[in-house]
């Protein structure tokens, strides 16, 4: 039930964002996040944006795993 999906914000009107989930357009309430802007990726859960997704951290996670072989093997 805590499933949340990453979606890209396409437009914002008042407290509602239209966001793309792999091409499907869904509405997301922005009551819980203050600083989201068009182009940001957010996690959507039961119609609410829970949090912005950090691109920097996502890339860092991938980089750490790619480097794994050198460190542990």
């Amino acid at each position: 039930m805590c499933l949340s999906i990453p979606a890209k914000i396409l437009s914002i009107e008042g407290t509602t964002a239209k966001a793309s989930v792999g091409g499907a357009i869904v509405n997301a309430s922005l009551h819980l996040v203050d600083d989201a802007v068009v182009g940001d990726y957010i996690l959507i859960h039961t119609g609410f944006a829970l949090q912005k997704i950090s691109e920097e951290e996502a890339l860092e996670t991938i980089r750490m795993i790619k480097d794994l072989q050198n460190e542990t093997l």
Partner: protein
Amino acid sequence: MMKYLDEFRDRELVSKLVDAIHQKSVRNIRLMEVCGGHTLAIRKYGIQHLLPSTIELLSGPGCPVCVTDRTAIDQSIAFAAMPGVIVTTYGDLIRVPGSESTLNQEKASGADVRIVYSTLDALEIARLNPDKKVVFLGIGFETTTPSSAVALSEARKQNVSNFFLFSMHKLMPPAMAGLIDQGIKIDGYIGPGHVTTIAGAGMYAPLVDKYRISVVVSGFEPVDLLQSILMLVNMNEEGRYGTEIQYKRAVTKEGNIKARELVSRIFEPADDTWRGLGIIPESGLKIRNEFSQFDAALHFNLRIKPVPEPKGCLCGEVLRGLKKPDQCGLFGKVCTPVNPIGACMVSGEGACQAYYQYR
């Protein structure tokens, strides 16, 4: 291409992580996930088959529908049976068996039960039906509670006096502590990703300190889960314990402060009953006095007699990691997703249904 999904399903990264886990893991350890999304993802991707025999994965009480006590389900059904009441709910709850019926069966017999996508849809139904009382069944952990909090805050702002919330919301850390208190041996928790997106990884500090156990907050893709397992293996092998975040793209130590403040303005912790675990102190959320006009439990004040779990159903043991779903005599025979006997088979993320779908 789905950004933030496909990269975390990459075959090469998966095999790197699997190799590292096999190389590092020496001690026998038991790791428990306490999020239904993790239960489902582990089964769906067959993560358990990629691990060495030193690592046992357990499913814990991470499915809100599954841990909701049968008396609360009966109470939800009782709201639907009252004249002039519209019951609104997330889809997960509608097929859960109460002692005699389900919300779905009540709906088929004429009760006004409506599935909504968001709490704000439920509030809108209340606004459009001022002559009816609209009850929203608030279920879920830290992730979902803010949605209920927004609905009550908006109900007050918009002066919608015919909207009521039945709070079955629960908190995860007290249940994680409760399992250890019950003597269940766990060497590390795969921490719930979106629960922690809201509540922040800092919330595990008392648990980690008291029980000297590790929590690694994980994302939901195969790469996320395997990296989290590797982190837990490393901590166990090195004799360390603590809280670490694997799911850094969505989780911080503080969480979503705005959501947390809103939740604590509207709810306060209270003792609550979990299926299989019994009463756990301060593990539920009740509506504060300032918002009691919206509290369905107070407004309708129904007396529901507690009933025992169905005979032969091991949902309670499954939720504590004591039994695997396929060790239940009912599993796959009389209890199936089409005809579920217990709650663990109802929800797509219940351990029994996840095991059944990906046998």
